[in-house]
C-alpha cells in the first residue's frame, strides 16, 4: 500500500511515524527542506520537496499509483487543491484536513466526493468530539467505541479508596465474572501490562476495560467510582479547539471560556451563543481565582501552549475541580502529566490519526491510546480455523496480548476464558509492540 502525506506539520509527522510501522511505502511532501531532512534522519521516510499543489511534485511523489493521499498542511485550500489534483492524477483515496466545519456539516451544497475528496478531517473538531464523549463519563480518563454502541474501550485510574486496590485480579475475580466487561490492560508508571491472575492492583494504576453498553456502569462499580454529573465547565483557550468545544457543548453545559486575545474574544463572543467569554490570560492564577475556578465541575485547558494547559489543570485539580482535561501536543509530556494527576489528555494529531486508522484504513491497527505503548488490532476468524470452537483459555494465545471482545452477527461480546470463537467473528486484540508479529501469525 502506497501512501502520500502532504504537509510535514504536527499531524503529518505523527501520521508518517505511525503509518511507517505498518506500511513500508510512504512519501512525505513539504516545502521546507529542514523539516524533510529531520524526517529522513529520524524516520527514514522518503520525501519530496515542493508544493503539493504542483502537478510535477505530486507526480514525482508517484501519485499515479498511490492508494492513499493525505493532505494535512495547515492551509485548508492547499489541502483541498492537493486532493482534487491528486485524485485526477490517479490517487485511489484522498483525505483533506479542513478548518471550516461548514464542509463537514453541510454536505448538500457541494458534493466533495464527486469532486475527488473522499474524506475530510478536522483535528480540532475531532479533539472537541473526544472532549464531548469524555464529559459524558467524567469518571473515565478515556472512552471510545470499538464497535457501534456495542463495545467500548475505556480507561480508568484507581484512586485510594477503591476496594480493589492492593488485591490481585484473582482475588477480585468474583466481581469480574459478569459477561459485560473485562480488563484488557494495566498501565503503571508508563509501563503497560497485559493482566494475569497474579497481577496486584496499586493506587494510581490506569486500567483499560472493554465493555458492552450494560457493562459501563459495572466497570465504575468495580473500580469503586461514583457517577459524577458535570454541569459547569471552564474552557481555557479560544483557539480552534476551544471554539469547537464551546460550540458543541454549549447546549448541554454552562460554559465559561477564557481567552487572552481581545480580538479573538470578540469574535467568539459574537459567534457562540450561551457561552460566557472572558478576556484574560489562562495562566494568570489571580484571574482564575477571580473567575472562581474551584466552582467548576470540569476545567478544559486547550491553549496553544501545552505547559500552560498542564499547569492550569494541575492548579484546578489542586483546588478541587473534579475533572481536568488538558490538550498536550508534546507526546513526551504525556506520561508525567498523567502521573501528576491530570485526568484526561487530548491531542489533536492523535485524534486525527485515530480517526484515519479507525474509519479509513479499517485495518488491523485500530487505535492508539494516550500514553500507552499498545495498540488494538482487528482480525477476522477464517473458516475452518483451528482456533474456532475452543474456549479461549485453551488456545495458547501469544503472551503480552489479549483477545478483548468479539463482534458476531453485528453484536458485541465480551471474551472471558470460556468464550469460544467462531468463523467470521471479528476479533479485537489488545497487544504490546513485542508481540505484534506473533498475534498476526496466530490469526494466519
Amino acid at each position, binding site marked *: 500500500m502506497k501512501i502520500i502525506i502532504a504537509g510535514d506539520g504536527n499531524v503529518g509527522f505523527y501520521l508518517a511515524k505511525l503509518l511507517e510501522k505498518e506500511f513500508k511505502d510512504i512519501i512525505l511532501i513539504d516545502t521546507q527542506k529542514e523539516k524533510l531532512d529531520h524526517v529522513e534522519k529520524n524516520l527514514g521516510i522518503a520525501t519530496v520537496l515542493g508544493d503539493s499543489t504542483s502537478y510535477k511534485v505530486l507526480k514525482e511523489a508517484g501519485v499515479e499509483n498511490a492508494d492513499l493521499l493525505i493532505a494535512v498542511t495547515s492551509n485548508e485550500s492547499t489541502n483541498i487543491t492537493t486532493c482534487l489534483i491528486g485524485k485526477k492524477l490517479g490517487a485511489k483515496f484522498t483525505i483533506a484536513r479542513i478548518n471550516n466545519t461548514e464542509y463537514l456539516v453541510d454536505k448538500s451544497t457541494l458534493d466533495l466526493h464527486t469532486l475527488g475528496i473522499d474524506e475530510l478531517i478536522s483535528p480540532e473538531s475531532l479533539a472537541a468530539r473526544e472532549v464531548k464523549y469524555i464529559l459524558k463519563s467524567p469518571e473515565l480518563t478515556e472512552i471510545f467505541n470499538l464497535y457501534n454502541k456495542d463495545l467500548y474501550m475505556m480507561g480508568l485510574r484507581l484512586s485510594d479508596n477503591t476496594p480493589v486496590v492492593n488485591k490481585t485480579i484473582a482475588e477480585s475475580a468474583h466481581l469480574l465474572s459478569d459477561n459485560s466487561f473485562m480488563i484488557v490492560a494495566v498501565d503503571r508508571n508508563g509501563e503497560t501490562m497485559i493482566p494475569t491472575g497474579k497481577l496486584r492492583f496499586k493506587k494510581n494504576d490506569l486500567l483499560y476495560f472493554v465493555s458492552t453498553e450494560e457493562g459501563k456502569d459495572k466497570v465504575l462499580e468495580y473500580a469503586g467510582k461514583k457517577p459524577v454529573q458535570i454541569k459547569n465547565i471552564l474552557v481555557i483557550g479560544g483557539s480552534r479547539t476551544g471554539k469547537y468545544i464551546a460550540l458543541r457543548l454549549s447546549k448541554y453545559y454552562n460554559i465559561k471560556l477564557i481567552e487572552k486575545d481581545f480580538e479573538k474574544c*470578540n469574535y*467568539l*463572543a*459574537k459567534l457562540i*451563543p450561551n457561552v*460566557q467569554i*472572558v*478576556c*484574560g490570560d489562562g495562566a494568570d492564577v489571580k*484571574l482564575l481565582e477571580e473567575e472562581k475556578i474551584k466552582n467548576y465541575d470540569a476545567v478544559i485547558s486547550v491553549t496553544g501552549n501545552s505547559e500552560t494547559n498542564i499547569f492550569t489543570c494541575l492548579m484546578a485539580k489542586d483546588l478541587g475541580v473534579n475533572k481536568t482535561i488538558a490538550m498536550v501536543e508534546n507526546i513526551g509530556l504525556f506520561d508525567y502529566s498523567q502521573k501528576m494527576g491530570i485526568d484526561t489528555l487530548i491531542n489533536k494529531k492523535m485524534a486525527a490519526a485515530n480517526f484515519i486508522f479507525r474509519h479509513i484504513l479499517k485495518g488491523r491497527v485500530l487505535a492508539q491510546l494516550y500514553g500507552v505503548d499498545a495498540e488494538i488490532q482487528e482480525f477476522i476468524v477464517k473458516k475452518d480455523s483451528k482456533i474456532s470452537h475452543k474456549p479461549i483459555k485453551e488456545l495458547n494465545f501469544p503472551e503480552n496480548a489479549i483477545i478483548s471482545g468479539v463482534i458476531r452477527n453485528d453484536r458485541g461480546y465480551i471474551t472471558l476464558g470460556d468464550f469460544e470463537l467462531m468463523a467470521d467473528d471479528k476479533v479485537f486484540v489488545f497487544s504490546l509492540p513485542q508481540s505484534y508479529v506473533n498475534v498476526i501469525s496466530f490469526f494466519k
Partner: protein
Amino acid sequence: MHMNLILYDKLDTFKIIFRQIGGLQIILGFTMAIPLLVSLIYCEFYSALGFVLSGLICLITGFLLYKRFKSSFEPLNRHALIIAAFGWLIIATMGAIPYIIIAYITPIEVAQQFGTNGANYISSLYYFKNPLHALFDSMSGFTTTGLTMAVHEPSIGRGLLFYRHFTQLLGGAGFIVLTLSLISQSSSRVSFLLYNAESTGERLKSTIIETVRVIWKVYLGLTFFLFVFLVVGTFILLPQYSFADNIFDSINHAMAGMSTGGFSTLDDSIAEYHSQGMEILYLVPMIIGALSLPFYVKVIYNKQYSQIWKDIQTRSLIILFVLGSIILSFMLLLSGLVSEPFRIGVFQFVSALSTTGWQTCDVHIWDSASISFIVIFGMVIGGAFGATVGGVKIIRVLVLLKALFWRINNYFSSDYSIKVVKFNNTRLLPEEMNKEISSAATLVFIYLIFLGLGTIIGYYTAEQGFTMKDALFESASAQGTVGLSCGITNPEMSYGLEITYIIQMWMGRLEIIPVLVLFRTILLGTKPKVV
C-alpha cells in the same frame, strides 16, 4: 486621489447641492404628468392647466440649475445629509406650486362644482392662494403627515386631491432615493448615505441601486394590493356606494395608507363612511404601512416567512398595536367623554402608532390622560424603522429598553467577561451595542427637545380655547408626521405656528439631524470644527 484632499468651501458645497436639487426638480416636473392625467379624466381643465404650468416651472428651473452647476464636483459623503435636508425643503416648496396656481386660475363657479353635493360653503381651494398654506399642505403631503389647510377636502377638486395623495406616495418611500434609482449618476457611497438619511439604510441587495429599486417595487406592489383590497372591501361593506367614487377613494386611500400619510378624499376622513365595518377595514392599510419595507422584501422576495414573528420590530409592533388599542379604549371609557370608546380607541391608536392620521373623532374633547397616552405610546414611538412612518421608530425604544436591562445584568458578570447582548437575532459586542445606544439615545433626546419646543410655541400662539394638552398633541402629530389634529391646525392659525409645524414635519421626516447639519452649513459653513 487628490479630489478628496480639496476642502470644499461653503460656496462649492452649495454648487454641488444645487446640481443635485436641479435633478430632483426635473423628476418632480415629470411626475406632475400623472395628476395632469387624472385632472383630464375628471374634465377639470383648470386643474390640468395648473399641473402643466407647475410641471413646466419645475422642469425649467430644474434644468437651468442643473445646467448652471453641471461642472461642479461630484458630491462627497458629507454632502449627503445636506442634500437630503435641502432637497426635501425644495421639493416641498416646488410641490406647493400647483396648489397656488390652481387656486388662482380656477374660477369660482368651477370650484363650487367640486364639492360633492352642492356644498353651501366656499371651496377650500381658495385657502391655497396664501403660499404659506400651500407650502403647509405640500410639506404635509411629502412628509406623509396629513395635516391640512383644506377644511373641506372634496371641494379642492379631484385633480388636486389626487395630487395630494400622490405626493404622500412619493414622499413615503423617499423621493430622493426614487430619483437615485431613476437617474443614478452619483457614486454609490453617497447614494447609500442618502438612502440612509431618508430611508432605512439596510442593504438588501448587493448594490444600493438594486436595493432602492426592490424597495420601490415592493412599496408600489403593496400599494396596488391595498387598492384592490379597499375596492373589494368597500364594495362588500357598502354595496350602495357609487363604484366610481369607490375606485377614486380606494386609489387615494391606498396611497395615503401605504405611505402612512393620512390624507383623505372625504370631508370627514374615514368617519364619513359612517360604518364600523369600514373603520375595521381601514385598520389594514395603516398596519401594513407601519411595518418596515425591508421586512416585506425579506418575506415576499426571500420567502423568509419566519420573519413575521422573528423580526423584533414587527413582533413588538403587533403587540403594541393590540395592547395600546385596548389600554386607550379603557382610558376613554373611564373618561366617559367619548360615546363609543372601543371603536374610537382602537382606530385612533392604530392611526397614531402607524403615524397615519386618519381621524374618526374630535380629539379636542379627550381628557389629558388619554392624550398623554396616545402621544407617548403612539405618536412619539411611531412604527417600524424602514417603514414610511414618523416618530422615533419603535426600534430606538427597543434598543434603549434593551440597554437598560443590559446595564443591570452587566453589574452581575465578571469585569473581564465580554458582555455580549442579543438584539433582533444578532449578537452585538459591547462596542457595537454602545454605538446603537448612543445613536438611539441622541435621536430620542433631540426628538423630545424639539417636540417640547413645538409644544411651547403652540401653547402661546394657538387660538383661544386650546390648552397645553392640545398643543402637545398637535406638536407630536406634526413632528411624528402623524396628521391627527385636535383643531389647532386650520387656515386661521398664526403664521408663526404654521411655520413651526412646517419645520417640525420637515425635521420629523428626516429624523432631525440632517436638518441641523443644513443649518450648520448655512450658518457656520463647512469648515470642520477644531478644538
